[in-house]
């Protein structure tokens, strides 16, 4: 009994650290304690992320104009500095203040492969989604037109993925494979990826739909093979995400029974 009450109080007390944590204002032991709590508290991770955006606004509002000669120096230094190759996604952690734990301070944020979205990372979806969200992709370097299209698309993807209210939904696809949706209600937009779909005969492809009370709206053909994320904007109430098998060129309306029908609530 008393133990329960105590645990409840500890939890509430831990929650209250989210602000100080986002402001980089926790002492070493408190920071470690809060990070342990974060690992199991999705609500707190969302809150901390929102606070991070708020703090960034406070920071950016302080902008000053650096002396012009610093620019060349920065560009020259970068040009001769080796970059990290792509790898586990990182977020800046911080050495807890006043402690010698700097080495161990690959804090919760900074610990590779464990982030606010551990399930995502585990699912291996994030890597694909984020890689594409990171815009353009090397394949896009073919021509100007493609580049600008892909850049616009990457912006949109990144915006959805970093929306404060983003949620993840997954569903099995009939016949094999799995679909994942990352959706922002606020932005009325989502990012769709599918993996492990069975190959189709030549001339056929998977077509993505929004299926709602007002009918079905085609959203494009899923790229064959690659788990390239697709962006859907303009979600309406009652919409579901659907996938059907269609002729390669696409259909204006679904002509087969959906292999996926995913409610978005």
């Amino acid at each position: 009994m008393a133990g329960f009450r105590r645990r409840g109080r500890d939890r509430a007390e831990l929650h209250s650290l989210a602000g100080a944590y986002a402001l980089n204002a926790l002492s070493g032991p408190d920071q470690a304690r809060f990070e342990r709590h974060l690992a199991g508290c999705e609500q707190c991770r969302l809150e901390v992320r929102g606070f991070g955006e708020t703090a960034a606004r406070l920071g950016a509002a302080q902008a000053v104009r650096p002396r012009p000669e610093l620019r060349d120096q920065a560009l020259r230094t970068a040009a001769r500095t080796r970059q990290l190759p792509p790898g586990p996604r990182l977020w800046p952690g911080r050495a807890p203040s006043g402690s010698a734990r700097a080495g161990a301070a690959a804090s919760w944020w900074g610990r590779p492969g464990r982030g606010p979205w551990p399930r995502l990372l585990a699912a291996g979806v994030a890597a694909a989604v984020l890689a594409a969200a990171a815009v353009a992709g090397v394949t896009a370097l073919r021509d100007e037109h493609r580049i600008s299209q892909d850049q616009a698309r990457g912006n949109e993807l990144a915006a959805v993925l970093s929306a404060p209210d983003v949620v993840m939904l997954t569903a099995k696809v009939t016949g094999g494979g799995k679909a994942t949706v990352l959706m922002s209600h606020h932005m009325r937009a989502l990012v769709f990826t599918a993996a492990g779909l069975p190959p189709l005969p030549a001339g056929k492809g998977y077509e993505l739909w929004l299926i709602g009370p007002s009918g079905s709206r085609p959203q494009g053909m899923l790229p064959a093979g690659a788990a390239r994320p697709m962006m859907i904007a303009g979600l309406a109430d009652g919409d579901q995400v659907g996938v059907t098998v269609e002729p390669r060129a696409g259909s204006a309306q679904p002509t087969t029974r959906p292999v996926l029908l995913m409610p978005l609530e």
Partner: protein
Amino acid sequence: MAGSEQAHWPGPAGGPGADPELALLVSRIARGDQRAYEQFYDRAAGPVLGLVLSVLRDLAQSEEVMQEVLLEAWRTASRYDPARGSAMSWLMMLAHRRAVDRVRSEQRAAEREQRATSAQVDYDDVIEAVESALDRERVRRCLDALTELQRESVTLAYYGGYSYSEVARLLGVPPGTVKTRMRDGLIRLRDCLGAE
């Protein structure tokens, strides 16, 4: 119609503070694109220097930290994770962390508490504020809407680089009170900045 890629977008999302173009630049930097880094510098250097300067109060040191932060952004761009926050929040986190690490390692708490009460800093004639920082006015309004204790708690921690126990000492209130005021203050700021 069918097969066309949907690329419609309802408009800039995430409020005026969101800067999707910065995220785009980070992804290009991740591929070693130096042109992108130039553009990134032009957007990032001012906010980074401003934040670092507010914590360190020393222009020469702040310029040094700014260079370190921007170089770290160049070096680690491939590891930036958009799912964890906007590119600007990533950058500001890098900057704040560096500034705080530096100030906490170099100065003893006593000196810093003295600094908090000391008068205006003198870099104003060396360096100019970025007039086009539209957010400046908005942020000021939202800070003004907080209670005094919320505002002091948030700004001493973020702009001053103080830990919450230092803030508690400076304000003469219990540490627990400061913790909750920081969180309450951020919630109100978030709502205020998001709503405008």
